Structure formats: structure tokens, C-alpha cells
């Protein structure tokens, strides 16, 4: 029974990792950009939610209705200005610029809001859980986050395969020049992809703040987990990211069960093992491989 609980908790946290990772995956798939400030963007979103909701007189639970669109817009603007500028130079510059942004954001948050942990307060529901078995507790918040993750992935998949904009995004991702020749404005398409990525990362950040405490330094760790989920699942596969996130979550819970010290380590070791044995990941194509 104890192992059933480990697996269930792993799946629950894995859903969150997938939600966190899908923006990273989309940015890489379409823009060929790794946004090293991805995790910090989520933390900023959580801070905005906490600081903004008292002024807007809305419950923190509903703050995402405001914050997510703001971040979508921010993503579009940031893409059309800073990120596009660095893409025009080379991928190397993009890495340096996003890493620089990441360090700046983290330290700015530290300076402005101290290292103290905060939470997105959603009332008493945080403590409630469903209790189906003797030692199995499923927290409602985690369950909702998992459901949101699956929903977001499904919508994203549907959007990319069915809608006109989604098809344009895939066309630009496959062959930028060819798409441009057929009349697509790739910079605008890049902006839309970045807007979606930022919107999902804002959602992930707020979800994170509901599940646990966050601090200025939370971004880095979560970027690491999101990245591991993407690689384990296979670069370029959205549903693979969900499976990768769940695999990572389960590995971490196994580690934590042996010794709390081993939680993150177990996930890292799974990642390194996948890299050694199956570098294209569980569902991946061999695109990002050297």
C-alpha cells in the first residue's frame, strides 16, 4: 500500500511538472529557444498573483484570470523585443540573455520581497484531501492541478493540430523560410507561441504557489524539473512531457520514501540514466541530439 501511495503522489506532482514544462517545450519546438528564465517567470507570476489580488478585490484562487492574460501579453512583447533580438544574433546569445534575465529577476525578487516563503492563499481547501485507502491521501489541490495540466496539454495539442494559427505555428517550427515564402509573418507567429508559453508558465507558477510555499529562488529548481520532464519524455512530444513529468515525480517520491535527502537526487539520477540509455527520451525524435 505504501508503494501505491508513492506512485499516486508521484503522478500528482508529475502533472504539475508537465504543466510547468509545456511552455518550455513549446518555446524550444517553435522558436528553437531555451528560455533559461522560464522558472523565474513562473515565480514572478506567483508574486504578481499574491500582490495584485488584494488591490483587485478578488480571491487569490481567481487571480489567474487576470495574471495569465497579462503574462500572455508580456510573452508576446518580450518575444518581439528582447528575445527576437537575441535570436537574430544566434542561439548562443539567446542562452546568455535568458540566463542573465534569470539571475537579474531572482536577485531583484530577493531584494524587493526578501527570501521569505509565500503562498497563494486559497483558503481551507488547501488542507482537504480525498482519503480512498488506509494511508493514501490525495490532496484536492494537487488533483485539480493535475486535471488542469491534462486539460492544458489537450487544448494545446488540439490548438496546434486543428486551428489555423496552430498550423501556422507548426509550419514555422518545421521550416521558417518556407512558411515565410507562403506569407506567414514568422515574428508574429513566434510572438504568439511565446504568449502561449508565458500564459502556461504563469498558470504553473500560480498553481505552484497554491500547492506549496514559493520564494525568489524557487524558479531555478522548477526549471530543472521541467527540463528533466521534457528530456525524459522526449523532446518535441507534448504527451511525452506528461509521461516524463510523471516518471520524474514517481522517481522523486521513491527517493523521498527511502530518505528525504534523496528526493531530488533520485529524479536527477533518473534523468541521467535516460540520457545514458535512451537519449531521445521515451517518446522523442532525435532532433535536439548532438
Amino acid at each position, binding site marked *: 500500500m505504501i508503494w501505491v501511495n508513492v506512485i499516486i503522489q508521484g503522478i500528482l506532482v508529475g502533472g504539475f511538472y508537465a504543466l510547468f514544462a509545456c511552455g518550455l517545450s513549446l518555446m524550444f519546438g517553435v522558436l528553437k529557444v531555451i528560455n533559461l528564465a522560464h522558472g523565474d517567470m513562473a515565480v514572478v507570476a506567483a508574486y504578481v498573483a499574491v500582490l495584485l489580488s488584494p488591490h483587485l478585490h478578488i480571491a487569490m484562487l481567481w487571480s489567474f484570470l487576470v495574471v495569465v492574460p497579462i503574462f500572455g501579453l508580456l510573452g508576446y512583447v518580450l518575444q518581439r523585443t528582447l528575445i527576437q533580438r537575441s535570436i537574430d544574433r544566434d542561439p548562443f546569445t539567446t542562452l546568455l540573455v535568458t540566463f*542573465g534575465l534569470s*539571475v537579474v529577476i531572482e*536577485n531583484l525578487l530577493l531584494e524587493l520581497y526578501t527570501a521569505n516563503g509565500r503562498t497563494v492563499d486559497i483558503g481551507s481547501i488547501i488542507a482537504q484531501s480525498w482519503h480512498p485507502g488506509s494511508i493514501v491521501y490525495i490532496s484536492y489541490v494537487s488533483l485539480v492541478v493535475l486535471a488542469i495540466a491534462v486539460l492544458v496539454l489537450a487544448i494545446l495539442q488540439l490548438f496546434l493540430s486543428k486551428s489555423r494559427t496552430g498550423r501556422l505555428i507548426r509550419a514555422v517550427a518545421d521550416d521558417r523560410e518556407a512558411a515565410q515564402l507562403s506569407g506567414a509573418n514568422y515574428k508574429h507567429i513566434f510572438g504568439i507561441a511565446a504568449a502561449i508559453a508565458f500564459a502556461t508558465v504563469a498558470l504553473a507558477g500560480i498553481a505552484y504557489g497554491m500547492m506549496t510555499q514559493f520564494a525568489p529562488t524557487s524558479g531555478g529548481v522548477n526549471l530543472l524539473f521541467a527540463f528533466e520532464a521534457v528530456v525524459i519524455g522526449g523532446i518535441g512530444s507534448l504527451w511525452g512531457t506528461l509521461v516524463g513529468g510523471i516518471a520524474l515525480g514517481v522517481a522523486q517520491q521513491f527517493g523521498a520514501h527511502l530518505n528525504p535527502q534523496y528526493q531530488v*537526487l533520485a529524479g536527477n539520477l533518473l534523468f541521467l540514466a535516460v540520457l545514458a540509455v535512451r537519449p531521445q527520451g521515451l517518446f522523442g525524435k532525435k532532433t535536439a*541530439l548532438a
Partner: protein
Amino acid sequence: MSKSTAPRTESLSNVSIRRSTHSPIFTVIGSLIIVVLLSVAPWIAPAQVASTLMNFFILVIMATMWNLLAGYAGMVSIGQQAFVGLGAYATLYFALKGVNPFVTIPLAALATAVIAVPVTFLLFRLRGGYFAIATWVVADTAMLIIGTIAVLGGGTGRLMPGLENLSPSQTAHYSYLATWIVALIVVIGTYLLLRSRLGLVLASIRDNEVAARSAGANVRSARRTVYIIAAAGCGAAGAVLAISQPFIQPTNEFSMQWAAEMLFVSMIGGLGTIEGPIIGSIIFFILQQSLQQQGVWYLIIFGVFAVAVALWQPKGLWGAFRSRFRSELLPVGHWVRTERLQTKTPEPLE
């Protein structure tokens, strides 16, 4: 390369290729004066200056190694703190075995180089941004594994033994000299390395990887060599760090701060030049010293500065200076000059 309208044979006879644009004698004399001054600094300058200089040397070592990785071999790593930490812990390990801490510095460099070999086989499966984040996973993993080893102090840390029978001023002087010597070896070694055959291979890969491959350059092995050397250099930096700040703690030695500093310093000074990281480190220390009352603002300002440089002046400050004044202190490339086109700016061919 300069374009010439003259017949090919004629123009070729007038082409001269030189390493330096000015007589190297100035560089030699200037360097000698600086080396002598810095060697006696702890005896002639206040203790505070010497300890600041020591931190400066540690940053120069790290930045020079990061520049070798990224500026010359095109590998962006945000996980070099893995080797800083492993170097520090290798020093602690050998010191616990009874080896004199100062003797452990080369051992620590060797140990990190050995650890780096298998790491390259994993990391080199990824490229670009994925490579970058994977280096960070490696650093995180190394920190977590070290944190589980009780004899090395686990997660809470441990004081480095072997320094207690030296007086405080002896410790300060010896660790200053050790750091200074490591920095000299790293900078001069990098300079010689880039003028060697490997430097030529790296330059050819940077200019055109496909052409380099077809001319027989073994790209992967050149990158692997560079990665291992950079690991050893960061290991040595970790070792002198451990001696200068002898309470060894995983979160300190494996801090992401190292990665941020070495990256910013190299970017601002100028990637792909020997002088760049040194100049970047000088600017960093001036900023840090003048803003040290204001928390981490120095890092925020420096980060914004680095991003701006990456976007608008990607050659860095030294790169901009060099192409404007055609001057180099430590030339590793060659300048091509055609006599007929004297008025045209000669382009550096590296």
C-alpha cells in the same frame, strides 16, 4: 578577409601575416611589472586588499575557464560550479587524509578532470540550450551526492583541517600566493593552449564547423579536451577557494552564483579573447566593492549590463576596444594585412 581587385598573384606577394600589431616588448615589460607587484602585494598592501585580490584571482580563473568553454569551443555551460564544488571537496577529502592543503591543489584539479571524463559522455548527447541545462543538472546532482557523505560534513559543512598550525598571517600569505600562482598558470596555460594546434582546431570549428570537419578536425575530441581542461581549472579554483574560506559547505561551493559571475564577467569583458574575462573581472570587482553596502544590487546591475552587452556589443568591451584600436596584449590569432590596402582596417583572423 580583405577583398582585392588586383590580380591574385600580385596581391598575395604583398600580404603579411603577423600575430601582434605592435611590438610584444611592451606587453612583456608591462606584464612583468604587474606580476612582480601582485606577487608581493600581501606584504606591501593592507590585508583587506590582499583578500579582495584573492577573490578577484578566483573569479579570473573561473571566467578564463568559462571563456575557453564558451568563447572558444562554443559550449554554454551554466553548471561549472559542479567542478568548483568538486575541487573544494577534493581538497577537503585529501586534507582529511592528512595531505597538506596547499599540496592538494593540483590533486583537486586532477580529480575534477578525471570526474569530467565520464560526464562529457553524458552531456555531449545534448546540444545548445539542452546541453546548458544538463550541465546544471550535473552540478545539482554533484551537490546532492556530496551532501549525503557524512565524513565530508554532509549538508551542514565541515572545517578544512591542516591549516591550524599556521599563524593567521602565514595562512593569509600562503593562500594568497597559491591563488595567485594558480591564476597565473591558468591564464598563461590558456594562452599557450590557444596558440597550440588545439587552438587552431578550435578557431577552425568556430569559423566553420563543417569545413573544419572535412579538413580532418576531430570536433568532438577537441571539445572534450576543452571541457576536461575547463573542469580541471574550475577544480583548482574550488581548491584555492576552500583554502581561503576554509568552512566547506555544499550550498556555498556549488553555488549558482559562480556560474552567474563567470558568465557575466566573460560576456562583459569579451568572449573569445584572453583579456576579456580579466577586464570583466576588474569591472565586476569595482562594482561589487562600491556597492557592497547595497545587498545584491551589484549582481542585478551587472546582470543587466551583461544582457545589454550580449545584445548590442556581443564582442564585449575588450572586443570593441580591440577592433577599434587594432591592439592586442595577448594575441592568439593572426592579423592579415595587404600592403595595397593599407588604408583598410585589417581584420583579425583567429
